[in-house]
Every structure is written in structure tokens, then in C-alpha cells.
């Protein structure tokens, strides 16, 4: 796989590693460096007496280094790969030494074990029993949550701001115990409501209603269409096996990476990548998670396009997807675009007719102009319909600067009355904005 320096840098867990990696991407830092058909490796003189042995499995993009760093990949891995990306010819073609062979063998052994595990016959009865126990656990938790919600509604939202934080955290913990992590997140969000903000009551009520819909949806799941059942289960916190998803046939297309939103909480970094299929005209959300600064599997750069097979999670309105296979990256042509906000509203109405839980979705619109209305930044289409920009959107100044107050073709993500620009087309080229 041919990587660019920027792509390698995106694999680094943080800015410090990026900088340190760049420093190490110099031939004279490496006592040896070589490449084989599957991996590249090198020895770097660190502060210890023995040089660090760094290796990169190019096929699976995995790293290993003998340095004591807890970061992953460490600066040596990043540095070696940058060096390879910039100057592959400086690596001597060679047979892997014993320490590289050993690691590669262990990796392939692990893969085989995984495959064996997959091939093992599934004990369907045991599986069904486990599922039943899980569902019973969730139902018990949901019953408690319903009582909690009713209690709030009976006593009035007016008393909620005075509640102790434990009022929310205890219920969130109960939902985690019941393995309903989606609901736990909703309870946490409700507890984090800014009770000093004007109109908090409406947002808080929204959250209660979402929880109530999920509780009743799950309780009456047998009456729901199969796809909607999956939505309910997924929003409650049932996970979907990625192996099962990968076993399905996906949708192959040229996927334009519209934008990337990164959030961090408790050492977990979540990357929300918004993709748009050029031929299929479908959008997709690819989530990637990184624990304790470890790298992400795919490096998706806004503005680039990937040739890939994506498999959507089952849903009435599929959006979240995984990348089953990526064949390459390149530039994407300008995709088809909606002509204004009215079209977005119509699409959203259709989506809500089958899926009662709104979630953010990306749209590509022609000729939107940043404007100010009642002190807020909005995006106006050519038909003079305006839509507010999500408050606090960090890229507003970039957008304004590039537009100069004139309309631009734009990708946005959002729902209802708040959309956030992901990127713009300027002179036929897509430019991602800050997030």
C-alpha cells in the first residue's frame, strides 16, 4: 500500500507523536532499515544501550516496537513509516530477520485462531439462551427506567435542576448494568443539561421522549418491522457483530470523505467519518474508536475519495456502516447536489415516516451562502430559505473567509434546525472545514 506522509501522520495517536515521528523520519536516525514483501523494519538508536527494534506489518498496518512507549503506534513506528512513505528506495530489500519473522508468525497464528473460532460450530441453543437472558436483563432495566421517567413527569420538570447529580448517575449506572448502554448515554446527557440555558425544558423533554419511545419500542418489539427492531435494539445498546456484518455483501462505490468529527471522553477517542457514495448517492457514517491514544484502522482524510465496499448496519434508514474492504484512494468527481433546504426537509420527512428517532445526516447542497439572521449564522439557499448553523461551529470563520459572502456548494451534517458545514467545493475541489 502506498501511503503519503500526511496519511501516516494521521495514524499517530497525538500531536507529540506526530512531531517526534517526523523527527525520526530521517535516514541517519536508523542504524538499519529494510523491507520485505509483508513488512518493513528498522533499528533506531534510542537512549538505551541497545537500539529499538521497530517493525510495521504493511498488510494489516500493525506496529511493534521494543521501546518502552505506551503510545501506539510509538514515534519510532510513525517515523519509520513516514520514512518509507517519503523514500521507499532507501530501504534495503531483505529477508526478514528472526525478530520480525517471529512477530509476523505470531500475528498469522492469531489470525488463524480467529478463523478457527469462526469455523467452530455455533451452539445455537446456548446462544439463544444467552440472548434471552440478555433481553430479560434489558427489560428489567427498562422497567426501572420507565418508573424513573414517570416519576419526573409526575413531579414536574421544574424540580429537576435541583436534583443531586447522583439522581442521573445512579440511573445511568443501572442502565449500564442492564447492558442498555445507549439508554445510559441518554440518561447521562439528560443529567448534563444546562439548566441555566433558556428553553432547556424542551431539550430535556426530547430526551425523556426518546427514552420512552425506546422503552415502548423494545417492549412491543414483536410488533415492529424487522429493520425497525434493529434500530431500537441498536439505540438501546445491543451491539452488532462486525464479523457477521463483514460476511454480508456490501456496496462498492467511490466514497467521498465529506468530513470527520472527533470527540474524546475518558481516554476513548471517537471518530465520526461522513462518507458519500458518488454512484449510489448514499451517505454513510463510519465510526472508529481509539482507546488510550491507539491508532485508527482507517485513515480517512476529508476531501479524498476511497474505493471501498461498505456494509451498512441493519436499519430502516441505513446510515452507519463499516468498511469491509478498501481498494484504494483518489480524487472524487463533484457529486450530485440538492438544490436547497426544502429538498432536505422533504427527505427528512420521508425518513421520519419510517424511523421515529432523528439522527444527524449529511447532505450536499448547491450554492449556500453564510448569512446572519437575528444574531445567528445561517446558511441561505438560492430560494431564500435559511437554516441556522450549529451554535459554536468552529469552522464558521474559515467558511466565511473562503466564501467572501458569496454562495458555495457545500456538504453539511445535522438535523432539524441546526446544520454544521463539513466542507465546501471551491474551484471544483472539496475542502474540509475545521471541526
Amino acid at each position, binding site marked *: 500500500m502506498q501511503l503519503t506522509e500526511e496519511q501516516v501522520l494521521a495514524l499517530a495517536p497525538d500531536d507529540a507523536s506526530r512531531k517526534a515521528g*517526523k*523527527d*525520526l523520519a*530521517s535516514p541517519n*536516525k536508523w542504524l538499519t532499515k529494510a523491507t520485505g514483501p509483508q513488512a518493513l523494519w528498522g533499528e533506531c538508536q534510542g*537512549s538505551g544501550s541497545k537500539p529499538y527494534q521497530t517493525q510495521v506489518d504493511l498488510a494489516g498496518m500493525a506496529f511493534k516496537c521494543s521501546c518502552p512507549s505506551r503510545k501506539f503506534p510509538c514515534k519510532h513506528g510513525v517515523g519509520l513509516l513516514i520514512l518509507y512513505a517519503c523514500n521507499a528506495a532507501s530501504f534495503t530489500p531483505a529477508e526478514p530477520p528472526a525478530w520480525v519473522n517471529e512477530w509476523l508468525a505470531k500475528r498469522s497464528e492469531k489470525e488463524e485462531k480467529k478463523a478457527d473460532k469462526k469455523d467452530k460450530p455455533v451452539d445455537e441453543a446456548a446462544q439463544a439462551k444467552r440472548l434471552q437472558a440478555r433481553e430479560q436483563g434489558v427489560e428489567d432495566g427498562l422497567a426501572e427506567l420507565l418508573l424513573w*421517567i*414517570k416519576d419526573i*413527569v*409526575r*413531579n*414536574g*420538570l*421544574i*424540580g429537576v435542576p435541583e436534583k443531586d447529580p447522583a439522581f442521573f448517575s445512579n440511573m445511568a449506572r443501572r442502565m449500564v448494568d442492564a447492558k442498555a448502554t445507549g439508554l445510559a448515554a441518554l440518561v447521562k446527557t439528560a443529567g448534563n443539561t444546562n439548566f441555566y440555558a433558556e428553553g432547556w*425544558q*424542551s431539550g430535556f*423533554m*426530547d430526551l*425523556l*421522549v*426518546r427514552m*420512552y*419511545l425506546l422503552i*415502548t419500542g423494545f417492549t412491543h418489539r414483536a410488533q415492529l418491522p424487522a429493520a425497525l427492531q434493529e434500530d431500537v435494539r441498536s439505540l438501546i445498546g445491543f451491539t452488532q457483530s462486525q464479523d457477521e456484518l463483514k460476511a454480508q455483501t456490501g456496496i462498492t462505490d467511490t466514497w467521498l470523505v465529506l468530513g470527520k468529527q472527533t470527540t474524546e471522553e475518558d481516554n476513548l477517542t471517537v471518530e465520526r467519518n461522513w462518507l458519500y457514495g458518488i454512484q449510489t448517492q448514499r451517505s454513510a457514517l463510519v465510526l472508529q474508536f481509539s482507546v488510550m491514544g491507539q491508532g485508527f484502522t482507517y485513515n480517512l482524510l476529508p476531501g479524498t475519495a476511497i474505493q471501498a465496499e461498505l456494509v451498512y448496519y441493519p436499519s430502516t434508514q441505513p446510515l452507519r456502516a463499516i468498511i469491509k474492504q478498501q481498494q484504494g484512494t483518489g480524487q472524487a468527481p463533484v457529486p450530485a447536489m440538492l438544490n*436547497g*433546504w*426544502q429538498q*432536505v*426537509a422533504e427527505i*427528512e*420527512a420521508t425518513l*421520519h*415516516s419510517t424511523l*421515529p428517532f*432523528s439522527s444527524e445526516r449529511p447532505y450536499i447542497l448547491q450554492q449556500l*451562502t*453564510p*448569512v*446572519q*439572521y437575528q444574531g445567528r449564522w*445561517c446558511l*441561505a*439557499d438560492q*430560494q*431564500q*430559505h*435559511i*437554516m441556522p448553523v450549529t451554535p459554536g461551529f468552529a469552522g464558521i*470563520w*474559515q467558511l*466565511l*473567509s*473562503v466564501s*467572501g*459572502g*458569496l454562495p458555495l456548494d457545500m456538504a453539511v451534517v445535522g*438535523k*432539524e*434546525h441546526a446544520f454544521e458545514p463539513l466542507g465546501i467545493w471551491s474551484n471544483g475541489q472539496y475542502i474540509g472545514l475545521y471541526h
Partner: protein
Amino acid sequence: MEMWNTIVQTAMLGTAKKPVPVSDLGTQGSIVAANDTLDREEQLLQLAALAFNYRQAGVQPLYKEGVGITPAPAEEKTYCNPAAAQALKEVLDEDSIGLLQLWLQQCVRAQQLLPPLLLPALLQKSVQQKTLRPAVELCMGNRGRWLCGFHKEWLALPAMSEEDRWQTGTPDMRKQVLQQIRETDPAKALEWLQQTWPQENAGTRASLLKLLHTNISEQDLPWLETLLTDKSQKVKDEALLLLQKLPGSTVIQHFWQLAQQVISLSPSGISIQLPAEVDDRIYELGIDKTAGKNNQADEAGIIYQLFSFIPPQYWEGFFAQNAEGVWRLLSAKPHTAAVLPAIGLAAGRFKNADWAELFTTDDQRYYPELLPLLTPQLREAYLLARFSEVGEMAVTWLTEHTQEELSLPLAKAVLGYTSANPYLYTRIFYNKNIRLFPVAVAAELAACAPANEYQRNAWNNTCEYIRRLLQLKQTIIHSFPSSLSFIK
């Protein structure tokens, strides 16, 4: 929306206090009310779920005619090329203020504009790094001025004229603008300061007076003399420091009268000694009585200080010799040679270039204050000859007073010194001062490695960083093809 508001109002008070207003909620209300398996709370939640979906599915964009902003005016200059824009992005990623200054300097010289995509980042940076502001203002074009109109922190940048900034700006802004004016039009800066002087408080007066050290001249003298009687001691002290730099001031003239009594010529040679009675006023005008041992300045100490206040050219008239002749005369005997370093200080104070050159031959002492008075060639030769002894002082002087690139030999000398002091000169030093180092020094970095093994290892790591900065510097220079002449 009305239905949703009714539901939220009911939820606010709670169903225990306010019954669900099913009759106000139309058909949906009646259907829910008819379901007698539901309690009040669930009735409200079901109605809320219905209204929630109704609201979500029925979102309509707001139609508003005539909402908009005036587009930015067209540019008169051209934008920098994509290579320069990419270099700027990398400089911002690297967070190197030295390279950012270089980039802006090149952009100003090429009369080009910042790329709109990176303009907000630069405007924000210039809020934090005020030294970047003038260059950013020159490179931001009409787009930048237009953009500043929407951002209150940036607004101050172009919207205010120099005079407005002086009259109504923040203390920092006023100091900045007075400094700028003093550099280009000293008389105007004096006039502005005199105009607002009665309205300033003592602290501000003192801090603004400090700015008059730049381009100080005899034109400032009459007004500065009046400040010696100011009520504030702080103001008096600042005025005195300024007057000590003006040969025509009463302060210097007073010292000169005493100095002529201190030095006497006779056939047996030159004698230097204080008269029996010394006017105590000299201690008010700048001579420190407590500078010597036990807080008591000895006679030699007082004479030394006194000579440091005498313009060196006065001695030429006194001895009827040119500068070199006076130097030879005073160097001849140890007791007269002892005052020469004080004359060296005076040469720096009164910016006497002829005398400054003479002191470059003094291998006993180093005179950093004379460096700006030397020709570049002489300064370089002086620094190179003395680097091993005065490395830290030389590096400090070069980083604080030099904007241009150093010659290759001087850059090597600097790196030879800094590489051996890795704790004092970390990456931050190179990041900030990369403007001083020519790109060609990249090939010489290995030769600058110190002998000590630990220091050499540290230097090897730093070298990579310096190389990257130099590479970026080269990219910047090549991105602005019309501006090569001033880079060596």
C-alpha cells in the same frame, strides 16, 4: 409547535399538579384519553412522543427575503500561490513563530495576499502575537478587512487608524502605536505624547516615556528637561535616563564640568582625581554613591561612572587629538587606561561609531552595547574572534537585535556554542530564531556537534528538528520567487 409547548408546560408543573390537557390536544388527545390502561404520566409521554415525531417530520426551513451580508470587495492584489499556501499550513502546524514571521515578511515583500482558508487562523494568531499584526494587516487584503467586521476581537485590527488607536486604544495598543510612530517619525511621536500628557497618570507617563529611547535626539531635550521637576519620582527617573543620553542636556553638561576638573594635564603626564569638594548633585543625576564595597563608592568608582556619562568626542577637543590619539594617550598608563572601559560605555550611550570601532581591539573586555554601531563586517569579525569567551552574551545580542540572516561562519559559531548548551538552547530557541540561520547551515550541523557524548546525542536529536525548520524555510523562500535578493 403549539401542541409541543402545551405538553412541555404540563410536564414542567408535573401531572400530579396539572392534568394532561387532552381536550387541548385535538384528535390525538382524545385517542390517548380513550386508552384507560394508561396512567396520566404515560398519557403525557405518548402525546409527547407523537408531538416529537410530528415536529421532527414537519421541519420546514425558514423563508426569509433579503437576509444576507454584503459580499467582500474584490481584491486588488493577488493571492499567494498554492505552494506558499501549503508552506503556510505547514508553518502553522509546526507552530513556529519565527517561520511565520518569515512567511509574512515574504508575502508583504511580494505584495501578495494570505489564502482565505488560512486567513482566520492568522487573524487569531495576531491577536495573541501582537508583533504579527502589522504584517497580517498588510497581507489580509479586502477579504481580511471584511472578515474583521464580523469578529469583535479582530475588529480592532484594521478598523482603527493610528491616531484613533493612540487616542482611544487600550494601554498596550497605545504603547504599540507610539513605538511604531517613534520609529518612523520621532517628532510626531513626541508631539502626540505632549498632547495627551496632562491626561495621563504617573504610571502611564513613565511607561510611555520609556518609548522615547528609540530615536532620541536633541529635539526632545527642552521638553524632557521640564520633566525633571515632575511630581512623580517614576517620571523623573525615566526622564533622567533619557537626558543621560543627550550630550546637550543639563545633566551631561554638569558631568562634563566636573570631568574637566577631574582630569588634568601636566608635563609629568595625565592625572585623574576627584576635586576636594564634589557637588552632591551628581548623585541625583545618575552617579551611584553606593555602587562600591560596603555601599560606598570609592573614588575610582565615581570617576568610572562619571566618564561613562561623557560623550567620547568631548575628549577629542579636550586633548586636541582625534579619537585614535586619545585612545593611545589614555592607554599609555594603567591609571588612565582604567577609564577607557567607561568611555566604551559612553560610546554606546551616545552612539559614537568612531569610538566604537576602537574598542573592538580591547581584548580584555566585551562591549555588547557597541555592536549596533559597528559595520556588519566589523561586527562579524569582532563576534567571531570573541565567540568562545562571550558566547551567551553574543547569542543573546544576536537574537534580540538582529533580524537579518547571519553569515554562514557566524551561524556556525552560534550553533557551535548553542549545541554545547542543550539545556539553555532547546528546540524553542531554534523555533523562535530560525530566521537567523541560513538554509546552507543545514549541511554544517554535524560539524557543530559538541565533543561531550551526552551533548552530542542531544544535539543529534535537535539537528533533525533544525533541519526540518530549515527545509520549511527554504520552501517559504522558494514559494515567493520575487523576493530572493534579501536572503543570503
